[in-house]
């Protein structure tokens, strides 16, 4: 039984169909890259996997270990082991990073985490992401720089230890040092916990530091090409145009 299974997924917002039959399977321990030009539907897919209410699934389904999550509430998907690293993380004034993390961790487990265990996990995660401990007493994303927000997303990922993480354009807006730190964090989690990942990116920058086993290319709401890491290099040198031309010929 696959872990995350997406079958013939059709999604629309208000008046427009954005995904037009997406098939994708991500298992624990696997790193997938989902690439595609702007407007191809990448962020829609990421948000739909976690159940964003603005996106309506009109056909197809999302399953996690056999359980149909297509209509599930976002919190149920998270509790099942899915995680979304947001492209634009929102600020939550008045709620500290540490307090939020403790609430989120407790929501995902039977018994509340002890202060000691939480402190240990937090220290480990902060070191992994090269952030100062004082970072976690700040209000969540409130006044954070773009790079801090992205690190904070990965810090949360390291604390919540999902089965499968969806990372939506995590590389955008990061300088090279931050990019490297974030990539090291993801690689460490993959190595230590066997976390699977679906890395969504427009550029290839993050994929210079994280090597995907599977690469998918999304174009106009459909996956038009799948392959291994070599596809990243081909896209880097040739752009998306050759796929567009192929798609036009197929149609």
């Amino acid at each position, binding site marked *: 039984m696959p872990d995350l299974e997406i079958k013939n997924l059709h999604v629309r917002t208000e008046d427009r169909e954005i995904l037009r039959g997406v098939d994708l399977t991500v298992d624990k321990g696997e790193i997938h890259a989902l690439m595609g030009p702007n407007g191809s539907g990448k962020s829609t897919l990421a948000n739909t996997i*976690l*159940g*964003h*209410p603005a996106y309506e699934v009109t056909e197809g389904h999302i399953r996690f270990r056999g359980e149909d999550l297509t209509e599930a*509430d*976002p*919190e149920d*998907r*998270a*509790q099942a082991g899915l*995680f*979304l690293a*947001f492209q634009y*993380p*929102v600020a*939550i*004034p*008045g*709620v500290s990073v540490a307090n*939020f993390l403790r*609430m*989120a961790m407790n*929501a*995902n487990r039977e018994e509340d985490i002890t202060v000691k265990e939480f402190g240990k996990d937090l220290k480990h995660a902060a070191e992994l992401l090269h952030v100062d401990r004082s970072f976690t007493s700040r*209000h969540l994303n409130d006044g954070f720089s773009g790079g801090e927000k992205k690190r904070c997303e990965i810090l*949360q990922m390291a604390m*919540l230890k999902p089965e499968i993480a969806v990372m939506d354009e995590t590389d955008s807006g990061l300088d090279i040092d931050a990019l490297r730190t974030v990539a090291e964090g993801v690689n460490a989690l993959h190595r230590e916990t066997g976390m699977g990942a679906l890395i969504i990116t427009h550029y290839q920058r993050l994929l210079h530091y994280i090597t995907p086993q599977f690469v998918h290319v999304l174009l106009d709401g459909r996956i038009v090409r799948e392959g291994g890491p070599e596809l990243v290099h081909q896209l880097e040198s040739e752009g998306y145009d050759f796929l567009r031309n192929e798609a036009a010929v197929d149609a």
Partner: protein
Amino acid sequence: MPEATTRSAKPGAAKAAVLNSALDGEGAGDGRSVEEIRAAALAVYESLPLPTWRRSGFWTTSLRDLDLDTLEPDHHEGGSELPAVVTDAIGDEPLAGLLVQRGASVVHAQLDPELAERGVIFTALEDALRDHPELVAEHFMKRLTYDRHKLDAAATALWSGGAFLHVPDGVVVEAPFQVVYLIEGPGTVQYAHTLAVGGANSDFRLREYDLAAPFEGPALHAGHFELYLGDGARCRLAHFQDWGGAGQEVHDVSTHVAEVGRDGHCLWMPIHLGGHLTRQHIELVTAAQGSDMRHRGIYFTEGDEHLDLFTVDLHEVGHTTGDTVWHGAATGASRASYEGLIKIVKDAQESHTYLQTHSMMLSPKAKVDAIPSLIVETDSVSASHGGTVGELDEALVFYMQARGLPRADAVRMIVEGYFEPIVTQLEDERLEGLVRERIAAKLAAAAEDISAYAAAR
């Protein structure tokens, strides 16, 4: 003269809108004794009808449902145990002093004996009038008025009990002084008056709690509060209003004023967490060079509550600073209006102040208004204001749900977080805990309403 006739926006109209303004009217300061002022107020009281505040076609605060003739003062004997609603709210932390007024009577007045030795006075105002007549007369009604409306007059003429605090020059007190006004039954009226004076370079904390034991039916609290801070004096001041929930019809028409002296500082936090109908005028005056005030307010209305707040940040001289921030939320079919005026008078150059007000609507039937305004009569000042009225941000809810938090928990954290930057500024853990507890209870009570609203949007 009554407000409604002197400040018509549309002259001649019988039901004209009222322009709110800084306190202006008859008060003390012309050498009259306390008795003479109260007698004059009584005459005003008897000559006026109950007031109506009409700001525009969209906002009216009316007391037409209140029958004053049926309300009686509720007298109590001192010395008995304090009711649970009081002891629960104040907890067991050490206080510099505790004064409790039940209905019309002060039943408990206690002051740390060490502070009494250092000259601090904390007692019922009626006792202070007898024991320290000159000290009271020097400050009584210095800034308050008695003729703006019938209940302004009533609070002056008819108060009983009351609270008087005097912190002498240079005295610094860490623990808070606590005043409690308690209403316990339907059909009762409470006329309240707190007078607090901080001498030069004094530094202290003062809390006034307005509480009600559970009951059903109408009651009235009409209160006056005045605080005068001398040169270099500092005060952290909190008003905590919780007159109970649905069915408990406590009307509150009050005027609160604080004056800050030269290089003095006041942090003032009004907290409104319950009241059937509230109309309050809250005025903070920076009255001498270098005085600084910080105003941090909170409100949360529910059910069919009606809250009408008008605050004034008045700069009477130059080189003064101010900073006002209010956060409010409304559920149910409640109505909350916050109007904040910055007024910088002629010759008050180099005053710098800022006002912002935010309101969050958590229900489709709730109605909130946030109106900042500005009157600047001089140049070379900086004064700015801003206001927002919004709904719960669904992007935040989704973010938190995507981390595994159930919707209700996410909403609670967001709304609590919205109040948190205000609540923590008082650096009063006990009061912070009380506010968080009440807000959480209100959110839990309104959970269905809030989700239905989100689903409908």
